[in-house]
C-alpha cells in the first residue's frame, strides 16, 4: 500500500511586475545593485502620515496576466493588511489581496512526462507589495554570527503578482515544467522578467503525499527555492523524506521547511512561526479596487498571442515540428523575430532553422536581447529567399549573414562582396555568350523548337545564376539569354 503514496504538489509563485515604479508610490523598482535605501520615499519607508496610492500599471499588468491564464477578473477586488513585525516590513503590515483577489480560476497547460500536456488549475492571482531586504553584518552576509543587521528598503513596495496553483502537480519534473510555462507566459506578456536567480520570480512549494482513501500526510511548505534545480531537488528530497517517515509509521506534520542549497535538504522551521496570526483586515487607506468591463476588454485586446497558441500556429500553420516550435516560442522576442521574417517572405522551415541556430547561438554567446540583434528580420528573409531559390549557396549566405551581423553593412554590400557583386550589363552579356558557346547543342535544340516547356532555357538560366552566385535576378538573366539566343 505504501508504495502507492503519490505526491500532490501546489506552487505559489511571486512574479515581480515590470511597472518601473512601486505599487503604492512613485519610487523606482530598481533594487538590484542599487545603493541601499536610495529608491525610497515616505510611503515605501512607512513614515508617519504617508498613505499608499495604487499604481494603475500594476493593475494593468496583473489583469493581463490574469487574462492570459484564463482567469475570471474581478471587477471589484480589495486590498487587505497582513500584519506582522519584521524589520524588512516598514509598516508592520504587508498590503496584499486576501479574500477578493484580482483574478481567480484560471489554468495553464504544462508538458507532462509522456509528451502530452496536462492542464493545471490556477486558483488565484493577486497583487501585493514586496518587502525590503535584510543585510546581515556577518562576513558572508548570513544571519548566523552576524553582529548586526541592516535594512535596505529599495525593494519595499515593488509590485508582485502572486499566482497560486491548485494542487494539480504530480511530480517534481511537472512542477518544473509548470514554472517554465508560467515564466514563458510572464515574459511573453511583458509583465515581468521572470528571473528566478535575481528573485523576480520566486517559488514556494506545497507538497504532501496521498495514498488510497484518506491515507497520506499533511502538507509541507518549502521555502527558499532560488532556482529550478532547487525546486526539483527539494521536492525530490521531500518526497523521499515523507515516504520514509510514513513507511516507518511516522506522521508528516504540517509545517514550513527551508531548502538548504548546500546540504540539499529541507529543514523545519521553529513551530513558533507556525502560530502566526496575521490579523488580516481590509486596508482602510485603499478603497476597493474597481475596474470596468471596458478596462478588462481593452486589456484582452492588448493580449499578445500566447506561447501555446503561437506554438500551435507554428506547427499547424507553418509546418514546423513541435520541438522547433517550442524553441522558438520560449522567448517572445525570438518568436516575434521569426514571425517577422516569415511575414517578410522567408520560407518558414528555413527561417526556423536559421533563427534557432544562427540567431539564437549568437544571442546566447553575446548575451544580447533579440531586440538588439543587428540583422533585421526582413534582411534575413531577403537572404533566405535567395538561398531557397538557389541563387545563393548556404555557405555564401552564412558568410553574408556573418558580415551583416558583425559589420552592419547592407545586404547589397554583403552580396556584392561574397557573391561577387551585381554584374554590369556587359558582364552579364559576356557571361551569357560564354554559356551559350559552352552549350551549343542546347541552343540548337531551343532554336529548333524542341523546348516547348521552356525547360532547356531554364537549364541555361540555372547555369548562369549559379555562376553569378545569386547576384542577379532570374528575370534579368532570362532576358539576357533570350536576347542572345533569338536575336543572334
Amino acid at each position: 500500500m505504501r508504495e502507492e503514496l503519490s505526491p500532490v504538489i501546489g506552487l505559489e509563485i511571486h512574479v515581480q511586475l515590470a511597472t518601473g515604479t512601486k505599487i503604492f508610490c512613485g519610487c523606482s523598482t530598481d533594487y538590484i545593485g542599487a545603493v541601499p535605501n536610495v529608491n525610497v520615499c515616505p510611503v515605501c519607508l512607512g513614515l508617519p502620515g504617508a498613505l499608499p496610492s495604487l499604481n494603475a500599471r500594476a493593475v494593468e499588468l496583473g489583469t493581463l496576466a490574469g487574462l492570459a491564464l484564463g482567469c475570471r477578473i474581478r471587477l471589484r477586488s480589495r486590498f487587505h493588511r497582513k500584519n506582522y513585525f519584521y524589520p524588512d516590513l516598514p509598516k508592520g503590515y504587508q498590503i496584499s489581496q486576501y479574500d477578493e483577489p484580482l483574478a481567480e480560476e484560471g489554468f495553464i497547460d504544462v508538458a507532462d512526462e509522456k509528451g502530452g500536456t496536462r492542464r493545471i488549475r490556477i486558483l488565484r492571482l493577486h497583487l501585493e507589495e514586496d518587502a525590503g531586504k535584510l543585510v546581515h553584518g556577518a562576513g558572508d552576509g548570513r544571519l548566523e554570527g552576524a553582529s548586526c543587521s541592516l535594512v535596505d528598503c529599495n525593494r519595499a513596495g515593488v509590485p508582485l503578482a502572486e499566482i497560486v496553483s491548485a494542487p494539480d502537480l504530480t511530480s517534481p519534473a511537472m512542477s518544473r515544467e509548470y514554472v517554465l510555462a508560467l515564466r514563458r507566459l510572464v515574459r511573453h506578456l511583458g509583465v515581468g522578467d521572470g528571473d528566478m536567480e535575481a528573485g523576480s520570480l520566486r517559488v514556494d512549494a506545497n507538497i504532501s503525499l496521498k495514498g488510497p482513501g484518506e491515507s497520506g500526510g499533511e502538507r509541507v511548505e518549502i521555502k527558499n527555492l532560488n532556482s529550478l534545480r532547487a525546486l526539483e531537488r527539494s521536492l525530490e528530497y521531500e518526497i523521499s523524506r515523507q515516504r520514509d517517515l510514513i513507511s516507518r509509521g511516522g506522521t508528516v506534520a504540517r509545517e514550513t521547511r527551508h531548502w538548504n542549497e548546500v546540504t540539499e535538504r529541507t529543514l523545519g522551521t521553529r513551530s513558533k512561526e507556525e502560530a502566526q496570526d496575521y490579523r488580516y483586515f481590509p486596508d482602510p487607506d485603499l478603497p476597493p479596487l474597481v475596474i470596468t468591463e471596458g478596462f478588462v476588454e481593452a486589456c484582452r485586446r492588448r493580449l499578445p498571442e500566447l506561447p501555446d497558441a503561437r506554438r500551435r500556429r507554428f506547427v499547424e500553420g507553418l509546418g514546423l515540428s513541435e520541438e522547433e516550435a517550442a524553441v522558438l516560442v520560449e522567448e517572445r522576442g525570438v518568436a516575434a523575430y521569426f514571425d517577422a521574417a516569415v511575414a517578410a517572405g522567408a520560407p518558414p522551415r528555413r527561417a526556423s532553422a536559421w533563427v534557432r541556430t544562427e540567431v539564437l547561438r549568437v544571442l546566447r554567446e553575446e548575451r544580447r536581447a533579440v531586440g538588439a540583434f543587428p540583422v533585421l528580420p526582413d534582411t534575413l528573409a531577403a537572404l533566405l529567399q535567395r538561398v531557397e531559390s538557389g541563387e545563393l549557396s548556404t555557405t555564401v549566405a552564412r558568410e553574408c549573414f556573418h558580415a551583416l551581423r558583425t559589420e552592419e553593412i547592407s545586404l547589397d554590400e554583403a552580396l556584392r562582396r561574397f557573391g561577387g557583386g551585381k554584374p554590369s550589363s556587359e558582364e552579364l552579356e559576356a557571361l551569357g555568350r560564354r554559356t551559350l558557346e559552352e552549350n551549343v547543342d542546347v541552343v540548337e535544340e531551343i532554336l529548333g523548337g524542341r523546348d516547348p516547356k521552356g525547360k532547356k532555357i531554364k537549364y541555361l538560366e540555372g547555369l548562369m545564376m549559379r555562376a553569378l552566385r545569386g547576384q542577379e535576378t532570374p528575370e534579368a538573366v532570362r532576358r539576357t539569354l533570350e536576347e542572345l539566343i533569338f536575336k543572334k
Partner: protein
Amino acid sequence: MELWEYSAWRLAEFVAQGQLSVSEVVEAHLTHMQWQEGTYHALITPMVEAARDRARALDTALAGGADISPLCGVPVVIKDNICVQGSPTTCGSRMLERWVAPYNATAVDHLLGAGAVVVGKGNMDEFAMGSSTENSFFGPTKNPRDPNRVPGGSSGGSAAAVAAGYAPLALGSDTGGSIRQPAAFCGVHGLKPTYGMVSRHGLVAYASSFDQIGPLARDVGDLAVALEVLGRADDRDPTCSSRPRTTYLNAIQTYSLKGRRIGMVREFAGSAVDPELHAAMVHAARICQDAGATLVDVSLRDTIAYGLAAYYILAPAEASSNLSRFDGVRFGFCREAEVLQEQYRRTRGEGLGPEVKRRILTGTYVLSSGYYDAYYATAQKVRRRVAEEFDVAFQSADVVLLPTSPRLPFYFGEVGDPMAMYLMDIFTVPANLAGLPALSLATGSGRDGLPLSVQLVGRPWGEFDLLGVASILEKAFGAPQPIQGTGGKYS
C-alpha cells in the same frame, strides 16, 4: 481691540488692504502666545523664530506684488500629528519625541499656500487617543476657560490655543470627536468635515477610516474659509474624494433657515446629558425655529445604543495596525537589544503610553483569528446600520442637532476610568462612523463660566448647511472671544 482678538478672515483682510504687515499680525500673536503658554501649555513645539521668518518672507512677497489669499498673515496652530516639514511632529508621544517630519501634510501645504503662518504645534493626547489631552507624553494642556479643568481632547492644544488667542485658527484631527469635543470644552468652534473632504496625507493615522483633519476657530466664517482652503482633492490620499468642492464664506452670509428642517433626536431627550448642555440644544433649536426652520423628530436609536461600542472596536483595530510601524527600526524612539523581539518589546513598551497600549491590545484582540467575526465584522455591521439610520433621518431633516459632549469640562484626574472617558465620545462618534460632517458650535457660557455648545450633523458633503445654520446661531449666541489671559511670561 487687540490684534489677537480678531478673526482670521478679518486679519487677512487687514493685511490684504495694506493696513497691517504680516509681521505686525504675527508678532502680536507671538507676544500674546508667549505670555500665555507658561500657564496653558497648549503647544508641544512653539515655532516663534520660524513664524517670524515666514512673516518677513510673506511681507517681502507682498511688497513685490504677490497675491496671497485668503489667509495671508493668519497665525495658525497645527495639531502635532500633522506633518510640518522640518518641524518635530511628535503625536504627543515619546515614540516620536525627536522625529522631524521630512514633508508637509497636504493640509499644511494648502494653509501655507493661502498665506498662513504656523506659530506652533498643538498638544494632544498621545496618537490622538483620549478626550482630555491628559494622555500627552509632554504633559497636559490646561483649559483657558478654567485652568483647573481639561481642555478636552485629543486636539486639546489646538482648541486651547484658539481659546487663548495664540491664533484665530488651528488644525485638529477628528477620529471620534477629537476636534469637536475640545472645541466645546474650550469655548470655540470646531468642524469635522465629511470623510474624504480633506486629504489625510501627512496626518499620522490613528484610525484611517475615521480620521479627518478640520479647523477650529472662534468665528464660523473662519471655519468656512479654512474649509475652502483645506477641502481639495489629493491623489496622495486615495480616500480623499475627487468630487468638485464649493465655496462657503460668501454663501453662508445669505443663508436662510426658511424651509429648512432641523432634526431633533428622539432617543436621548434629557438623558445622561448635562442639563445646561441640554438647555443649550433646546435654545439653539428655538433660535432656528424663530428664524423660520421647522423642527422634526428623528430617530437614531441604534446609533446611540451601539455606535460607541462599534467605534471602540473598529478604531482600535485600525490603530493596532497603523501603529505597527513604530518599531524603532527606521525612525523614532528605539531601545536596542541583542534579540529582535526584545528590541520590539522594549521600544514599544517604553515608547508608547498606557492608553495607546490599551487600544493596540484591544485592536489586536478583535482582529485575531477566532474573534474577528464576533467583534470586527459585527462592529462593521453596526457601522453600516448607523449610516442607514442617518440616511433615514436626513430624509426628513437637513441638519441634525445633538450635544457635542454629555458633560461640561471636567477637572484633571476626575475621569480616571478609561470606559468613563470613552463615554465622553458618545455623541461625536456617530458622525465618524457614518463619515458625516459635524460642527461643534460655542453657544456662550453656563455655570462657573464654563463654555456651552451644540453639535450640528449634516448630510455627506452637507458642510454648507452646517456652516449656514451655525452662522445664524452664532449671530444669536455671539461669537466666542479669546480669554484675556493672566499667565506668566513664557520661558
